[in-house]
């Protein structure tokens, strides 16, 4: 597989604007000198005390991973395979050993991007900014990685790695900052001290380390903050209500189940309710109801007429985007 990597490597370099003169000469294939390495060292050592407090270790389920705080109110970026679902409680350890908890918000399993929120502690969290200029992280740029490989170890502290970006794809960055288990979810930084990647996957070669780029985060920010599960390559548009239906013995359309966290649950729809009409159209079977909901986009409002314990009632529900792995 390593051979294929080299085989398919291409020598084309984008004609990009590089600010630092040393980086420019490198892009032309020139040799690095000690002065360049010392500048890299100087920058990393300057940035380290500023960015390190934002790194956290995460314990979720039976594994350990990493994450990075990106706002004073405790928003946390990590990899989607860490919580593996929205609404998951995770144990979080700060650099100084302080233990707290976070709850996962939305995530994107395709690109491995996930958002979580730390429990409020009544004062601001240390945080770093994320880079909004995704295209700037080009092959050859120096970068550095932080994480807790193998889990939190107070005596050792976070582990630093300095390397270069090897490749940028639509949703990821590859670098030669060597990663391993436990690093998942940790941050890759540029030399402005901004997060440009979240550690995600490795392959056998030392240079085969993959980070989620900021692209999937920025693209799905709103949805992730609303704890939605995003499927970037999509399964078709259509709003999501969050109820499972069944035909009752009286051949009426009844609610069999309401999915946790769904708009239906928030609007007060409960299992056993009979659905009489949607936006004035009488509902007589499951396919009709399903098609009616899906025909409307996320954000649209449905007016439902229900019968609960023999009493009719009306309510409005705003549809959201359909999560990846749940019912209709």
């Amino acid at each position, binding site marked *: 597989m390593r051979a294929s990597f080299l085989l398919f490597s291409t020598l084309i370099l984008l004609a990009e604007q590089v600010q630092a003169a040393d980086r420019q000469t*490198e892009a032309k294939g020139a040799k690095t000198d000690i002065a360049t390495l010392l500048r890299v060292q100087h920058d990393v050592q300057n940035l380290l005390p500023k960015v390190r407090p934002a790194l956290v270790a995460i314990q979720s389920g039976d594994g350990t991973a990493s994450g990075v705080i990106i706002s004073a109110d405790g928003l946390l970026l990590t990899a989607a395979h860490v919580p593996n679902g929205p609404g998951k409680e995770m144990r979080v350890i700060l650099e100084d050993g302080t233990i707290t908890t976070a709850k996962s918000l939305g995530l994107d399993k395709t690109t491995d991007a996930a958002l979580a929120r730390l429990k409020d502690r009544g004062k601001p969290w240390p945080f770093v900014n994320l880079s909004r200029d995704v295209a700037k992280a080009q092959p050859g740029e120096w970068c550095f990685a932080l994480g807790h490989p193998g889990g939190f170890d107070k005596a050792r502290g976070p582990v630093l790695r300095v390397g270069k970006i090897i490749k940028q794809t639509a949703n990821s960055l590859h670098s030669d900052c060597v990663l391993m288990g436990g690093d998942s979810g940790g941050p890759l930084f540029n030399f402005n001290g901004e997060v440009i990647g979240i550690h995600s*996957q490795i392959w056998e070669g030392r240079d085969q380390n993959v980070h989620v780029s900021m692209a999937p985060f920025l693209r799905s920010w709103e949805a992730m903050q609303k704890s939605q599960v995003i499927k970037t390559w999509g399964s078709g548009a259509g709003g999501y209500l969050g109820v499972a239906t069944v035909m009752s013995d009286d051949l009426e359309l009844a609610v069999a189940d309401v999915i946790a966290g769904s708009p239906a649950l928030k609007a007060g729809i409960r299992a056993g309710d009979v659905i009489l009409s949607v936006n004035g159209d009488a509902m007589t079977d499951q396919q009709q109801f399903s098609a009616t909901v899906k025909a409307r986009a996320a954000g649209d409002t449905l007016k439902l007429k229900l019968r609960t314990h023999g009493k009719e009632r009306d309510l409005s529900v705003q549809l959201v985007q359909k999560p990846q792995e749940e019912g209709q």
Partner: protein
Amino acid sequence: MTKDEYRAERSETASTAKRVPPRRGEQSEAMTNDRAPASHVWAFSSFGLRHFVLLFLLGPLCILADPLRPTLPSEQRTNGKNTLAAVETLKPLTVACAARIESPLGRAICTATVVGEDGYVLLKASEVPELHKTRIKFSDGRTADLREVHRETRLDLLLAQAIGITGLRVVSFGAARPLALGQWLCSVADAGKETRIGIVSAKFRRIPGTGAALGIRMDEKAAKGGKGVRIVGIASESPAEVAGLQENDVLLTIAGEKVAEFRRVHDIVNKRQPGEIIDVRYLRKDKEETCRVRLASRTKVLQNWEGEDFANGGISLRSDNFPEVLQHDIPLLPSDMGGPVATLEGKVIGINIARVDRVTTFALPVEAFWTEVQQWMKADRHPPKAVLAQ
């Protein structure tokens, strides 16, 4: 097959291995309760790896063959030729002060650091349990036999002297402890021929020891006829597997001592040192056989029960029990241990002492050994050894 060849062969298939937790009625040398945390700690690791293997197998061509996505050529990567050009001028202070320890057939065993112009070198002790079966090859091409001067298990260091050699280039030491995270370092690599760069990547600290292990799980019940202990599981790339032991072999004696119970096996092995060689007599299909097993650190065996996947070239047999280490991220092999680590000024600040995992190499900082080593050299140079007056 040499161990290195063996490792290389394993690494091709390492990712398909599955972790099998000990079943009831079986005992690893570490006792089942001890094993549990190790597998927990790495749980995300195993998930991540499998996840990626799948992804790669499904679509390697579309990921790699995209000509619109430029890939940094290997010579421009952090340890590529063009970047390493920065430390080329340091070779007289690093590579020229290192040597290669090899087998009589010329296979690289480990690396040595020259500390005395009259042939004194430092090695990683656990890599050379049988020094008389090795020879040293210096960067100037000279070869020599080695004489063991002092073996210090606490530091995993061995001071040896190349017989009949003088006029060697000696390393120039500088202080390690003041170095902060992010400080560039360069190490001698490729069995003493090349250099690689990396940084100080974590805090200086002590690494506690956990004893030695074979890498086997044993039956709790005594073997048939009440003689010996049956092996019910073997860790991948473990000392037991490398030595050729198999499942269902019945251990009869360990280091000359008869064993009838798994706890005894554990006790005998655990108190020995990683790197040490012990004789094992066992029963296979009613036939008695013997083998020699080179023990490893228990942590190394437990954390890599399914093999050293993604460690790139394997890890050291002894990876713990050091009074103080400097951790760095220089990509090295176990055979590079014993070689010098220097700053970009060419000051040697330590000796590589253990390749631990994909991201970790430990070096002994100069402060942890140099005073002692000077005393061993002094005592060795001036026989007869004077008895100090009270």
